[in-house]
């Protein structure tokens, strides 16, 4: 234990202090830009909602004019369409909330929970289609998916606490089981309606509805507020669950909160990313951030910044190449991850991906 004295560690020398200061400045600038962008996007969703009201109509007209001039500048036919802004608003907000929740999920070794809840939500969407077709009622699909997703989240949580199997066994059962139910419903419903479920499977900018964007805006505010309010508790149970229990934190309660927040994020994100790819935004930016972060707070910030870059880069790729949005966003996210691996000298920090 000779190398174990209190002074054997790398001391905080004055010469690496400026580097840390610069690093912090970049992070804060990135967070500020992300916050501003998210606020602008929520602003757009609200303006679209209120476009018939006196003041809002002028602001909304300004927004449309900005879109037209952006189209003129880039030579595109994208930004003049309000429905594209709905998609982009949804994407930008996904880029914030998915990595935010994912930071805790990944380090709780619960990365696959997101994938599972996406499949549960898929069953929810299928069920919503069927419900609407059979009853002639016009229930918002995503709301049905949200309810089914949250019920599924609590079910997964209940199963993992009650069963003796390894943590990932109930998750695997839930993942394939809910997808199986979804396919049965789709198959049954196909006779009744022409169900257009592919958009939810692979993600499509065109799928995002006005209601979908509004839902995402509302959910994002809820998720950010919930994580900010419980950051300390989520950090403690993620890092050392046993000590958190001794400190009398309600570990089961916070675990449940975390999976419910995941379900909420997944339902909002599946419009753009698609069921199959939704888990990537929970995991990949966090893996990239963990690769180079020097503290947990920094991991959280960098995850959100990388998530945002992935969404913006992915949109650019999707619009430029007329590609599906989900695949484009995930490919950009993975490119960022590979860059961080290279930046940290190719020493992959083994984050367990099971469970």
């Amino acid at each position: 234990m000779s190398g174990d004295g209190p002074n054997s560690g790398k001391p905080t020398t004055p010469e690496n202090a400026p580097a840390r200061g610069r690093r912090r400045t970049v992070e804060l600038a990135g967070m500020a830009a992300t916050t501003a962008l998210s606020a602008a996007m929520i602003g757009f969703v609200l303006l679209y909602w209120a476009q018939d009201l006196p003041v809002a109509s002028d602001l909304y007209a300004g927004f449309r004019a900005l879109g037209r001039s952006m189209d003129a500048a880039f030579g595109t036919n994208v930004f003049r369409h309000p429905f594209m802004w709905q998609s982009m608003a949804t994407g930008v907000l996904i880029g914030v909330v998915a990595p935010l929740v994912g930071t805790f999920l990944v380090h709780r070794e619960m990365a696959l929970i997101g994938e599972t809840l996406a499949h549960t939500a898929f069953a929810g969407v299928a069920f919503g289609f069927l419900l609407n077709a059979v009853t002639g009622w016009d229930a918002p699909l995503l709301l049905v998916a949200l309810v089914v997703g949250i019920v599924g989240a609590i079910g997964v949580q209940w199963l993992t606490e009650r069963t003796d199997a390894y943590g990932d066994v109930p998750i695997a059962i839930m993942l394939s089981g809910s997808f199986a139910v979804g396919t049965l419903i789709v198959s049954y419903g196909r006779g009744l309606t022409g169900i257009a479920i592919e958009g939810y499977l692979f993600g499509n900018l065109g799928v995002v509805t006005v209601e979908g964007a509004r839902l995402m805006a509302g959910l994002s505010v809820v998720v950010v507020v919930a994580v900010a309010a419980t950051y300390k508790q989520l950090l403690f149970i993620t890092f050392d669950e046993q000590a958190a229990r001794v400190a009398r934190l309600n570990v089961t309660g916070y675990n449940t909160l975390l999976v419910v927040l995941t379900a909420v994020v997944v339902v909002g994100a599946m419009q753009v990313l698609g069921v199959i790819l939704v888990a990537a935004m929970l995991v990949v930016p966090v893996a990239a951030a963990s690769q180079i972060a020097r503290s947990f707070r920094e991991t959280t910030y960098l995850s959100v910044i990388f998530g945002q870059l992935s969404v913006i880069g992915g949109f650019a790729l999707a619009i430029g190449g007329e590609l599906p949005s989900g695949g484009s966003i995930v490919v950009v996210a993975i490119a960022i991850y590979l860059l961080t691996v290279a930046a940290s000298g190719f020493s992959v920090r083994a984050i367990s991906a099971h469970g």
Partner: protein
Amino acid sequence: MGAFDAHIDRVVDSNGRAKRSEDGTSAHTVDPAIELEDVTFAYGDTPAVRDVSLTVEAGDFLGLVGPNGSGKTTLLHLMLGLHAPDEGTVRLFDRPIDEVDDGSRIGYVSQQATNRGGAMPVTVRECVTMGRFAHVGHGRLGGEDREAVATAMETVGIVDLADRLMNELSGGQRQRAYIARALASEADLLALDEPTVGVDAESRDAFYALLDRLNDDGITIVLIEHDIGVVTDRADHVACINTELYHHGDTESFVESDALADAYGATGQVVHHHHP
């Protein structure tokens, strides 16, 4: 080296605590810190703790000894409410264990750091700060909290490691960070499960000297330690267990008794415990 000896007074001063008299027993009619009554616990069909009754007075320093797999850790977990007993009752701070909601009164260092911290980028400072979370709840950390964290890091000599990641440290350095976290909680009760595994001899001696001082200031300590010599040197009372309680009494009576040989010897002979 100076580890462990700075600002001890600051670590212990902010809570009103029970003071002990010179003979090491509770001086005033202070409520016992921990009371176990006929506690039995099994993992499935494997009994881990059988029919254990013992009381830890406020301000006591209890050493918990026994062979490997004797149920020491399980007994500590029962005391802290990490397990619910199959039979019997556990009371902590004179309340039924499941009604104890003030986590800020307990500081805990688990065996070999049972956390998941493997790849998680958490700094030493962030880890030690977790010791304050039970105090602040959903509120913000204040100057008092940051001061307690700084003092605890100074006490165990890890100030210069504050911004390093936990997963970059050696086992002994990491263990000191966990000890600092328990100290930062400024608890009435410190529960320590082989806290100095992997810590070098010099730091270990300094740590046990610190425990003595904390105990002198009235903090209740329950210590699991495989080194019997440390226990007999430091503890006021010793509980020797091997599933059943072989001995619980003051350290002197433990040294004179055959409890150790009985518990470790596994002769099959059951020695019934006796309370002094």
